[in-house]
């Protein structure tokens, strides 16, 4: 389906030096009619560079025509980007992005926020509903508190006529949806931007391609290498620098083949400096450049690169991030069947309720819960340091997620083990460039959670896709149900507490995931006959431990039922049956995806009941 907008867009993309091979890939309608996607026209090998978008053509708060106005009035984040895009849209054919925006607005994303109130009611049974309602409310608030004053202030740019036509609440909502569902992280100068062409690549939980950009650039001007001082970090080098051109950066020797540019080497050196803990990689990266780039400078582009082979006709996809369905729905406008990153939120209150039913001792519950909340950081200390110490310093570094909204979207990160989540926290091995920031964003998102505290929301815990509960919940339940002596012991002695929790986690490994591991270990032994890391032998549970464990398991089952009731989820039909009927109903768009969210959560609760039931039986 080649509309005239698409054709005009492709011509524009070529003009603006976006690189792709017309014989190798094309943009066309996806079979599910979700929208446009990128498809292979022939077999392509892993490592193939599908799309390369120069940073000069991304639409960000730094490249929009009104960049200085946004900066002057300190408008930030997605709202700023949205206003910037709305401005460019209002410029019509005169905007440098005209053909791109025309294509986008011709096919607006179908987001849940566009659904009628009645349709949204349908989704009351899943958590996405609240998030979406909050989104709608926030949209209105942002419009009134940020957009309108900004436009009033700059009335010589936003004349009455332009305001009426291009800057209504409706226009804001429409562009916000585009920005939310299409925005991609670029680097620490642009932060989030619309990256034309690359943003037509759709999500898949098992993608065949990846998105890579070079993140570390000058925050002031966006260049790979320049002379701007960034908060004194470069001062040391520059002190010795009396002659402007001779840095302490040693330039590349001029040989037969390469005509080295001092700028290129400085860029390599700067990148190396920035990635301190990746020293080895940094050096390799430098050398690669010296060999690969003869006379060329580093092309700072946003790339889509194949990780796997694709066949002719296959859609090229990437992973937007390990998001549960509710975030996929509210941010991107779709959801994934059987999403391995899906989660169900457990409110702290529900935990209290479940505990109360079993213990019938409110005072005890309060005491133990309070202690846990105050002290949990010490236990998760080690894991969190990597994340807390990280980059998110505050204002400038805004990421493209739902932070401004303040209702901490449940993220399945905190405290969970990385068993499945291989791509969530660890950066991908870089080719020449740093891995896409979205994976890193996940770590950072927790940091921004609620706006009052620089913290994640403490009263929210999770159940994972397979029905298992997250680490925090497991610890809290143990704290609640352990006997008096045990509690006194861990209250006094942090060491004892750590030991206790370590023990719990190890037991969970064995008891809940033990079967799989044992099988695997046997296989490994057969294959390699090598020495393996000796597993610490855990003795069988003693009476006390069994008692606590039984209480914990019962509490979990109670908790699941409380959660189910809270959202009106029944077990009249199984989750599998629900999925079948959903598909039969042949719904499309947000209604279908909303249905997937509901079904997905039910599946998790169901998995949880089955799983913990069987553990209880085995005990």
């Amino acid at each position: 389906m080649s509309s005239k907008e698409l054709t005009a867009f492709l011509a524009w993309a070529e003009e603006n030096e976006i690189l792709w091979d017309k014989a190798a890939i094309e943009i066309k309608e996806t079979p599910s009619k979700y929208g446009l996607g990128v498809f292979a026209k022939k077999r392509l090998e892993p490592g193939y560079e599908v799309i390369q978008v120069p940073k000069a053509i991304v639409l960000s708060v730094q490249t929009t025509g009104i960049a200085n106005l946004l900066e002057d009035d300190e408008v930030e984040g997605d709202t700023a980007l949205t206003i910037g895009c709305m401005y460019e849209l209002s410029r019509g054919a005169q905007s440098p992005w005209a053909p791109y925006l025309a294509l986008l607005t011709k096919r607006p994303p179908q987001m849940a926020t566009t659904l009628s109130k009645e349709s949204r009611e349908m989704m009351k049974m899943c958590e996405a509903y609240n998030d979406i309602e909050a989104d709608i409310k926030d949209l209105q608030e942002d419009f009134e508190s940020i957009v309108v004053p900004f436009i009033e202030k700059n009335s010589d740019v936003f004349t009455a006529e332009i305001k009426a036509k291009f800057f209504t609440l409706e226009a804001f909502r429409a562009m916000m949806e585009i920005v939310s569902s299409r925005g991609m992280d670029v680097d620490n100068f642009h932060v989030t931007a619309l990256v034309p062409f690359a943003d037509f690549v759709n999500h898949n939980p098992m993608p065949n391609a990846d998105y890579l950009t070079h993140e570390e650039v000058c925050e002031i001007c966006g260049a790979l290498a320049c002379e701007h001082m960034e908060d004194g970090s470069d001062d040391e080098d520059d002190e010795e620098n009396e002659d402007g051109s001779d840095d302490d950066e040693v330039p590349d020797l001029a040989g037969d083949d390469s005509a080295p540019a001092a700028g290129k080497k400085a860029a390599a050196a700067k990148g190396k400096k920035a990635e301190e803990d990746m020293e080895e990689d940094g050096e390799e990266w430098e050398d690669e450049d010296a060999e690969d780039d003869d006379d060329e400078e580093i092309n700072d582009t946003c790339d889509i690169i194949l990780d796997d082979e694709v066949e002719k006709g296959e859609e090229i996809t990437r992973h937007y991030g390990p998001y549960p369905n509710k975030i996929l729905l509210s941010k991107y406008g779709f959801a994934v069947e059987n999403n391995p990153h899906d989660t169900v939120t457990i409110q702290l209150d529900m935990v209290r309720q479940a505990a109360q039913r079993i213990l019938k001792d409110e005072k005890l519950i309060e005491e133990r819960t309070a202690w846990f909340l105050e002290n949990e950081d010490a236990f998760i200390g080690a894991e969190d340091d990597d994340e807390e110490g990280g980059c998110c310093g505050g204002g400038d570094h805004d990421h493209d997620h739902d932070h401004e909204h303040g209702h901490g979207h449940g993220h399945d990160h905190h405290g969970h083990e990385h068993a499945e989540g291989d791509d969530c926290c660890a950066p991908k091995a870089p080719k020449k460039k740093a891995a896409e920031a979205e994976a890193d964003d996940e770590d950072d998102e927790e940091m921004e959670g609620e706006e009052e505290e620089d913290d994640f929301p403490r009263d929210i815990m999770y159940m994972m896709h397979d029905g298992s509960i997250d680490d925090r919940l497991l610890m809290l339940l143990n704290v609640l149900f352990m006997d008096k002596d045990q509690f006194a012991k861990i209250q006094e002695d942090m060491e004892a507490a750590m030991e206790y929790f370590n023990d719990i986690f190890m037991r969970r490994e064995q008891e809940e995931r033990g079967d799989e591991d044992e099988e695997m270990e046997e296989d490994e032994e057969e294959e390699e006959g090598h020495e393996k890391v000796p597993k610490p032998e855990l003795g069988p549970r003693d009476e006390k431990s069994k008692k606590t464990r039984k209480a914990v398991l019962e509490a979990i089952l109670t908790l699941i039922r409380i959660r189910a009731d809270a959202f009106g989820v029944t077990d009249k039909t199984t989750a599998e049956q629900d999925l079948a009927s959903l598909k039969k109903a042949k719904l499309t768009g947000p209604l279908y995806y909303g249905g997937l969210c509901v079904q997905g959560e039910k599946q998790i609760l169901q998995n949880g009941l089955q799983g913990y039931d069987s553990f209880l039986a085995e005990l």
Partner: protein
Amino acid sequence: MATSSEQLCQGLNCSKPAALQCPTCLKLGIPNSFFCSQSCFKDNWGAHKAIHKIAAMANGPPGGSDPWPGYKYSGTLRPVYPLSPRRTVPAHIQKPDYADTGIPLSEQNIRSSSVIEALPKEDIDVLRKVCKIAREVIDIGVAAVKVGVTTDEIDRIIHEATIERGGYPSPLNYNGFKKSCCTSVNEVICHGVPDMRPLKDGDIINLDVSVYKDGFHSDLNETVPVGNVDANGLRLIKNARECMEKAIAMVKPGALYRDLGNVIEKHAKTEGFQVVKTYCGHGVHRLFHCAPNIPHYARNKAIGVMKVGHVFTIEPMINEGTWKDEMWPDSWTAVTQDGKRSAQFEQTMVVTETGVEILTAR
């Protein structure tokens, strides 16, 4: 001097055969800086780079009229070295931060490249006076343009006229620039370095003058004919001036900086000329060059909306032939790639409530 193909490494305690040369030495025209390997080069870097400083202080290799043997010039213009010694500025004259070190620290210390300062009235009043001085100085410089006069002589005149009026010539030592103004002859697009070449009948020359006084920079330039210039040359000069004027006419609050290039390129094209893309107009006030960045070509993506108090230059460079530029080995002189001529005009202006005030107007 060994002329055999086998050079030996310059590193201390190393006499391995060496085929690679220090790129900075190559640029500066220092011969025989051979090293056997990047790591040996790195090890000796501390000692070696001292040579660059020494060479940079000199005015090019002695005795040669062709300071860069082997360099392929795009046109007929040649530099005439050695350059005259660096001119001095009396102590009582307020100097910009780069006057001694060459490094404009204040320009490097900006917070963000999308912030465009809007100057308050008091600042504009001071700037207005500085711009007036710059206008006087350039007029004096232009009056001195004659067949047979060297560009160095014009530089001297401009330097002294600036000092006389209590100002500092902004180009002097800005990022190491050696002279007090830029003299760009024929195919030189901009940043020509005044040297010992006498102007010839038929040349066209651009004088770019900037004066720093009372904490503010001003910046303007003009292209003038030398003696009898052919019709095409005169057309080029006229077109360049008109391009600038048409762009200035668009300046008012709410206008976009990126739209200026459209009108400039449109006018240049009507006479078959092309617009240089590499060099742009720029903000100018307390900093010599700062935001906004103003490209002169069509459909550019400059950011920024004009607001009252914004101060900047518009300085289109218009070429007879290709718009493409390249740089001489002195790292300053920009020339057209096809050797054809280039003309330019520049004014410093401020956005006012009703439109624009040209601060460097005659």
